[in-house]
């Protein structure tokens, strides 16, 4: 015969036992934990941009257009450089004529429609250049919105476009918060930076990295702890663009300020 005290004790024990999830009783295996954290992959391409070093020469844009057969005179480009001039009255002036394909050889800011704005040197409080390219996001919105599965992410993190499969609906062009996508003027399909996939997959650097005389651009493998890019990203104060969109971008910037969008 069970006593009242015993009954209460045992029923509490059973209720408590039920409350513990089965998975909580599982013993931690450090190796499995490490593997799941890094999903076991050896390569994840990332990019590092040092805005302190960029001088806006535009050699990266030129090299990218030629390397990736983006028509040279069409006003579209996979990568571009933006100039930010912040004046002492607190205004920010941004331009990127032709994506900075020919660099910045004018002190005036290109405000579009053939108009230029003169800014005096003594009015400038800070001025700098920011190269932009595809962020190869971990949660790529462009991939999510593609209705036909023409754009996808490779195992090493690069987002590619299947030119045979793309129907040119433009959802991805609208979906990218960074504005890196456009229509290829020749193939009439979505086009974007792919970290020069043909170069990095054979151990080369991207064309823009090779063209940059200032070391402002670097491509690296975040899964390799010895990679110099990984060392900077893990130890230095880097930032990403538009983190609030939840896209987990993989292009890291040194020297970003709030003016950069």
């Amino acid at each position, binding site marked *: 015969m069970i006593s009242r005290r015993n009954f209460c004790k045992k029923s509490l024990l059973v209720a408590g036992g039920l409350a513990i999830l089965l998975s909580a009783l599982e013993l931690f295996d450090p190796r499995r934990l490490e593997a799941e954290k890094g999903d076991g992959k050896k390569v994840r391409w990332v990019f590092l941009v040092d805005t302190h070093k960029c001088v806006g020469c535009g050699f990266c844009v030129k090299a990218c257009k*030629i390397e990736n057969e983006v028509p040279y005179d069409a006003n579209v480009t996979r990568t571009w450089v933006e100039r930010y001039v912040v004046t002492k009255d607190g205004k920010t002036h941004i331009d990127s004529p032709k994506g900075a394909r020919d660099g910045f050889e004018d002190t005036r800011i290109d405000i579009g429609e053939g108009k230029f704005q003169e800014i005096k040197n003594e009015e400038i409080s800070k001025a700098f250049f920011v190269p932009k390219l595809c962020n190869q996001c971990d949660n790529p919105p462009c991939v999510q919105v593609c209705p036909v*599965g023409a754009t996808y992410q490779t195992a090493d993190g690069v987002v590619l476009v299947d030119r045979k499969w793309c129907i040119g609906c433009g959802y991805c062009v609208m979906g990218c918060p960074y504005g890196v996508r456009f229509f290829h003027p020749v193939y009439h399909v979505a086009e974007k930076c792919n970290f020069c996939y043909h170069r990095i997959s054979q151990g*080369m650097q991207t064309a823009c990295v090779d063209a940059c*005389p200032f070391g402002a651009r670097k491509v690296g493998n975040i899964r390799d702890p010895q990679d110099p890019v990984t060392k900077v990203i893990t130890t230095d104060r880097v930032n990403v663009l538009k983190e609030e969109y939840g896209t987990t971008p993989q292009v890291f910037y040194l020297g970003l300020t709030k003016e950069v969008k």
Partner: protein
Amino acid sequence: MKSHVWRPLYVVLLVVGTVLLVRKVLVPADFGIGSRGYMYGWHRPSNEAEWQKVTVKYRTAEYCKDCHADKYQEIKQSPHAAISCENCHGPALKHPDDPRSLTIDRSRELCARCHFRLEYPTSGRGKIRGIDPKTHNPGLECVTCHWPHDPRKQGHTKKSAAASGLPGRPASIGHKGGGHDIA
């Protein structure tokens, strides 16, 4: 049951069959959802190899240095060391088989990409020696006075400079001495 009841069913079956057949023909065998699931995974894996097959056009200075060791060594020991050969000489894709394929850019605009003076105190650009192309010997190629492989040396086309009635770069004006508008 009468045939007019079954007839629509046959039509539906025929349509379904046709769609499946067309799908089988049009959709590549490897098209599927891949490892990233329904939200991100749909793609044709063989497309990766297609992108990897794109031709490399910029072959980097490593490709140049064996035949042009002198030029390579010269620029590597100069303040221009970090500038890749192909930035000015054009992509080496068809070089040396087709000598005309190199697009050597000697324009003032090329040099002005870095050396157009912009007074930007917070950017590396502000630290580069620069000129205003409108006032700094307009109409002359930079290489007339400045040797691009080593800007500390004099220009390499003294003859053409003499022909155009302009003196070559005076030896007394070093790069660091600077002209009046070299910042």
